[in-house]
Each structure stands twice: as C-alpha cells, then as structure tokens.
C-alpha cells in the first residue's frame, strides 16, 4: 500500500458525507445504500465513523459528473477513467467524483461495479494512495470480474490502519 504525500488524514472521529448528484443507471436509494456500505468497509477497520448529511457542507462530497466538472480533472467519457477522489483536507479534500458517462451497476449485470469503485475512491478520501499489489481494492486498474461480495485485502487494511489505527472491538 502507499499513503498520500505527507500522510493527510481526518482528525475528527466523525467524518460527514453528502451525496450531491446521482447516476441515472441506479435508483437513488441503491446509490445511497452502496455509498453507506463502501464507507462501512473502511470504518469496520478503523476508529472512524461516517455520518450522512443532506445539506450544507460535509467533509466528503460525493457526486457523479461528466467531462469538465470544475476541479481541473475532467472525465473522459465512457471507459478509461472511472472516478477520482481527493486526499483528506478542506474544500475539495476528501471529495469523490464518479464519471457519469460510465454504466454503473450494483454488481448484478455488466458495467462498472459501483460498490467496488466507491470503496476504492473512499480509500483516497481517507488518505490512501494506490497499491501496487494486484487484487487489492486500492490497485489502480479495474477488473471487469469484481463480484458484489469482495472485501478489503490485508494490504488495504494495513494501509488504512497505518493512518488511523485499529478499531477497538471491545
């Protein structure tokens, strides 16, 4: 695994998130559930909790956009770049953007598995960079055969716990 330069991380134990735009490929409630599930994958390993807010500012702003969307990193249409996210910090920091031009799925049919992509991007939102270990969630390329029931690998967990420590299970 690798961390973002200077190892930025959230210092509050509660990190807020807000979903500001959606894909038309999935029902909104499914997107909401997937985002919650993806964040939970990380929070199960570290002493950090996520709280959804419906308006106003939030640490992690999540949205779908196409082409140029105001952050100097335009998307490129179907294929290639699927999404990106920013390291923890103010403003754009922590925000996760997904390319609206992809066909997003809940893992049931052909397309990009949103749960997998979201879990990956939230890894960046929490401070992880790309892993060079194939098969990890933080590996940069997307394999088409990701099933719905994937989980974080040892490498992903070691990376996130390096930043935040382990969740106390007692």
């Amino acid at each position, binding site marked *: 695994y690798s961390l*973002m330069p200077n190892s930025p991380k959230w210092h509050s134990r509660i990190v807020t998130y807000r979903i500001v735009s959606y894909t038309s490929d999935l029902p909104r409630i499914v997107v909401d559930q997937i985002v919650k599930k993806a964040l939970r994958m990380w929070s199960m390993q570290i002493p950090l909790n996520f709280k959804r807010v419906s308006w106003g500012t939030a640490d992690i702003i999540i949205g779908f956009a196409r082409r140029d969307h105001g952050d100097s990193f335009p998307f490129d249409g179907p294929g290639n*770049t*699927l*999404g990106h996210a920013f390291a923890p910090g103010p403003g754009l920091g922590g925000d996760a953007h997904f390319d609206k031009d*992809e066909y997003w799925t809940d893992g049931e049919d052909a397309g*990009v598995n949103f749960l997998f992509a979201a879990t990956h991007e939230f890894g960046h939102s929490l401070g992880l960079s*790309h892993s*060079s270990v194939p098969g990890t969630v933080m590996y*940069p*390329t997307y394999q088409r055969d990701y099933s719905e029931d994937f989980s974080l690998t040892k490498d992903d967990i070691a990376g996130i716990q390096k930043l935040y420590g382990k969740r106390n299970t007692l």
Partner: protein
Amino acid sequence: LPLSQEAGDVSAHQWEQAQNYLRKFYPHDSKTKKVNSLVDNLKEMQKFFGLPMTGKLSPYIMEIMQKPRCGVPDVAE
C-alpha cells in the same frame, strides 16, 4: 521530453496515448518528485506494475494503459 520513436514497437496513435497516460498518471519521479522524461515515467510505471524497467513500450504495457482505472496518479502528487 517526449518518448523517442525507439521507445517501443507501437503505432503512432498508441504512442500518443502512452504519452498522455504517462503525463497523467506518472507526472514525476516517486522519490525525487522531479518532473522526469517520459522514458523515466514509463520506467516508473513498469516498476509500479512489477515489470522489467526497460523504458520501452510493449503490447502488455499498452494493454494496461487501456484498462479502465481510477483517475488518481499512481505517483501521488
């Protein structure tokens, strides 16, 4: 510095694609943080993916470059 024509046996279109990919995802040296030549960036990419660091484009490297992926650079900025 652009990749030289000797950097691999690929078409002009692939060559351009490779340069764009390297500029986007391997913008600088992972240790020194300095902007490198594209050949050095290609070596960085080969290192990341556990391949021999030849600095030459190959069909396999082109295959990796065409996979869907995250837009965050592999050499973190």
